[in-house]
């Protein structure tokens, strides 16, 4: 549109000419390179390749091994989806980890000490966390303060509350039973709760596969890997929903617009405040879901749960291609970022490598991802060199 430089005016008369000599053809490879998921996909390929070589015959890629790292990835993936959407919307939430600890307590205390049915306590937890997310979001939107500082406040407030409230109400900071009632029994006896949050799916298929000798079986005949844990199902479901909303819906366009340039979004009629607050609520709900699934899995709640999870979620989102400045990123990428986490965290145990290298690897991965994202944004997305 800078106008034809060479062609005479006669040929320039057709306004919608199919080609523009000023626009370079972009091949499919370059298109793939420009996708926000590219970094995480190549990272995942690399990580799988490394472990296939170093731990290929150690059982890491057996059914139990896969379930093992998939579970770790799934827990992180659930909060990474929320963190990614929020980051694409231009904000951060540093209170994710504290929210996890707090939510677990808010589930366990009413169920164990106040005699609430577990599903009621669960509903209470989700509503409470959603409300806290809304408070976080409203504070950021109303005051115009960076979300970094507002949610840092909640990072301390919620962690402190989990410890203080549980000590005040129960005298303990780790809750698994009270007066002979075990949390684990409450979980298994609450049909609604256990159907949604506890146990596995596809157990029949796994047993059948064990029967055919495809995967390892126990002495009794059932599969060694019981089935696909429900947390994995939640993770995949949330990733699919999050990815769909972002790419295909009006709400997704709003999230991108709000994160890309909040002022421009406002001037074109996007309800900026509502979008941002709702993203904080979604992130808080993801933290609550993490906590509920963890309580169901562990049979206990502890006030120090979820420590540093906010960082892991943000790192997964960044590995997944989300820009720290907002407006660009991918939910699917963030989930693949979480997968990388799970594979490395569990995979290292299958190799002879010292576990402490895990954190070194994470830091290096984060740095590489940020550098790569910045480069890609300049080079491909904005066409600069």
């Amino acid at each position, binding site marked *: *549109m*800078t*106008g034809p430089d060479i062609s005479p005016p006669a040929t320039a008369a057709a*306004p*919608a*000419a*199919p*080609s*523009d000599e000023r*626009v370079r053809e972009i091949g499919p490879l370059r298109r793939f390179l420009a996708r926000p998921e590219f970094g995480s996909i190549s990272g995942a390929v690399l990580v799988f390749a490394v472990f296939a070589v170093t731990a290929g015959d150690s059982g890491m890629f057996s059914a139990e091994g896969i379930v093992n790292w998939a579970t770790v990835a799934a827990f992180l993936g659930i909060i990474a989806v929320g963190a990614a959407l929020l980051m694409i919307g231009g904000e951060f939430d540093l209170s994710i980890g504290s929210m996890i600890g707090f939510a677990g307590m808010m589930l366990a205390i009413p169920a164990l000490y106040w005699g609430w049915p577990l599903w009621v306590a669960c509903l209470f937890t989700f509503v409470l966390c959603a409300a806290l997310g809304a408070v976080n979001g409203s504070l950021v939107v109303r005051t115009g303060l960076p979300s970094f500082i507002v949610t840092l406040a909640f990072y301390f407030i919620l962690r402190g509350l989990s410890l203080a409230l549980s000590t005040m109400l129960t005298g303990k900071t780790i809750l698994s039973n009270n007066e002979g009632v075990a949390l684990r029994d409450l979980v298994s006896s609450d049909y609604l709760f256990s159907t949604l949050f506890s146990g596995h799916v596809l157990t029949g298929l796994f047993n059948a596969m064990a029967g055919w000798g495809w995967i390892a079986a126990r002495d009794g005949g059932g599969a060694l890997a019981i089935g696909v844990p429900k947390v994995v199902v939640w993770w995949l479901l949330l990733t699919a929903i999050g990815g769909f909303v972002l790419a*295909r*819906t*009006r709400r*997704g*366009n*709003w999230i*991108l*617009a709000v994160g*890309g*340039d909040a*002022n*421009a*979004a406002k*001037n*074109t*009629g*996007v309800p900026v405040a509502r979008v941002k607050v709702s993203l904080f609520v979604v992130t808080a709900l993801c933290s609550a879901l993490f906590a509920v699934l963890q309580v169901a899995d562990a049979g206990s709640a502890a006030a120090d749960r979820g420590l540093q999870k906010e960082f892991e979620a943000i790192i997964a989102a960044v590995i997944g291609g989300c*820009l720290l400045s907002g*407006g*660009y990123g991918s939910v699917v990428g963030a989930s693949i970022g979480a997968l990388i986490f799970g594979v490395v965290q569990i995979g290292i145990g299958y190799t002879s490598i010292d576990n402490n290298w895990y954190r070194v690897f994470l830091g290096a991965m984060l740095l590489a991802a940020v550098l790569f994202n910045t480069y890609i*944004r300049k080079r491909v*997305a*904005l*066409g600069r060199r």
Partner: protein
Amino acid sequence: MSNLDHILELEDVSKFFGTVIALNGVTLRLRRGEVHCLLGDNGAGKSTLIKTLAGVHLPDKGEYRVDGRTVHFKSPREALDLGIATVYQDLALVPLMSVARNFFMGREPRKKLIGPFHVMDHDLARRTAIEKLADMGIRVRDANQVVGTMSGGERQCLAIARAIHFGARVLILDEPTAALGVRQGVNVLKLIRRARAKGISVIFITHNVNHAYPVGDSFTLLNRGRSLGTFSKGEIAKDKVLDMMAGGAEMQTLMAELEGVTI
């Protein structure tokens, strides 16, 4: 004394910010289908004037009429609903989003997916964006192209085409050519011509007489919050416009000092 020839009328409008008199009894009448250039140097009150027209500010004194009816806009949205669209200098475009996504930002077309669920109609958005831009003589090969890769002129054109598509009867353009090179500036001027040919009335804010003169039907000059009057093209020569804008005699002296500088 309203006149239906005029789509917008500001009658003796003043606007104060504390002790500052931003506008002092300004009268501006925009005829239907004309390009009305609003000229003035920095601090002349151009921004306050367009923000008043756009519904951001309510005038403290005087009257604002649209189609002969007095209006009191509480928000820019209300002005927009009457077809008064303002393209500000920041253009309200998101560089990291595609042409199609930007074109429909805040007004996304939707189609039914299943039951109560709707999705954004990306095909329609892409097709419409390309089509409407082509209508305005702008060629975009790929609606998925990211706006950040476009030049300043292309972005300006995109923002204007968007405003026209969403039903603008009056386009208020805030210094659309200010940051552009010669060729791109000309493209924007062409676009203003096209908009007028479609029957859209345009208020074109600029301090560049060379851009204003070729496309303008009438000119209003602002200086230090006051209107120096409105002139139709036949009434006033380009040099005279420039003269009044720059503060006449003062500028002449300065020019003489800066030896050899001519405009």
